[in-house]
């Protein structure tokens, strides 16, 4: 019995990150609650982080540039979550709802 697929390598991490990314994308497209959209966005960013770290470890292990990029993504996503939630709260004051379909202020 060949167990080579169970021995983890770079491909495993990439496929896992792909699956997480696709689930996040699915959530962004289907969910009606803005906060859930924001959560799925965070999920996608995490998938990207896994990719950065895995590529760094397998392809260029002695220089940790991938880690630095992951830290920058961490920073940007924290800022994005703060501003996003603030916008959601301001929108909720205006419209009394968090349904994405209701936010059509920019519609002609």
């Amino acid at each position: 019995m060949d167990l080579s697929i169970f021995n983890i390598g770079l491909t495993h991490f990439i496929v896992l990150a792909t699956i997480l990314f696709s689930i996040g994308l699915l959530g962004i497209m289907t969910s009606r609650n803005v906060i859930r959209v924001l959560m799925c966005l965070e999920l996608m960013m995490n998938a990207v982080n896994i990719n950065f770290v895995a590529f760094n470890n397998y392809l260029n292990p002695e220089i940790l540039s991938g880690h630095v990029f992951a830290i920058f993504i961490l920073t940007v996503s924290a800022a994005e979550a703060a501003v996003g939630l603030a916008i959601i709260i301001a929108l909720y004051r205006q419209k009394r709802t968090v349904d994405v379909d209701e936010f059509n202020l920019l519609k002609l």
Partner: protein
Amino acid sequence: MENLIFWVFAAVSVLAAIGVVFHRSIVYSALFLLAVFSSIPAFFLLNNADFLAIAQMVVYAVGMTIVMLFGIMFTREKFMEEEPGRRQRFYAFVLIAGFSLALLLAAGAFYTQYQVVTPGSAFIATIQQDGSTGLLGALIFQKYLLPFEIASVLLLVAMVGAIIIAKKSFTEESAGLKYPVSEKEYINETAEGMLKEYYEMGRPGSKIPGVDKAADEPEKTDNEMAGVQ
């Protein structure tokens, strides 16, 4: 051992991610998100990224989940438990599209050949003794110093911006610089004005039970009034 850790955490994170998307209650979604964020540091550790694993745990699993829960509490409504069956066709279409995208990307990743590099023994010794934090710090503060400073400015700007956006409104009135309306309307129509009037002038504008005696006592009938007289 490594394999076991990977497969267990991969299963947990994928199942919890599916829970984030498909659970009816948004609060449970946030808790599933916590599960995803807590299992992702395992993959970082498997890739020798110890500092990043801890940072991920602190920023995402603790900070982000709490912020999300606050957002949910500020905007919670009953209807948001999504009702099924409203957009079935769109749902099915997106499900198929997402699944095929995942399949395509996964197949691409699976069939690509990578040139895996094994690190030198000196590097391995450093990582095993000191971890990656020192190397990472040297990299951030030398090669990537400018982006790092820009990122810190970004965090500051985001913080100030979030406070300003989430504030009710920033005007002279809210800052207490002047009366929002004319003084008469201020006293008669705002709760603050009514309280001020109540306590300063000792003349109740309305009957408040428990505070105002007139509201607690039952109204006297005409006969009682006559009897007293």
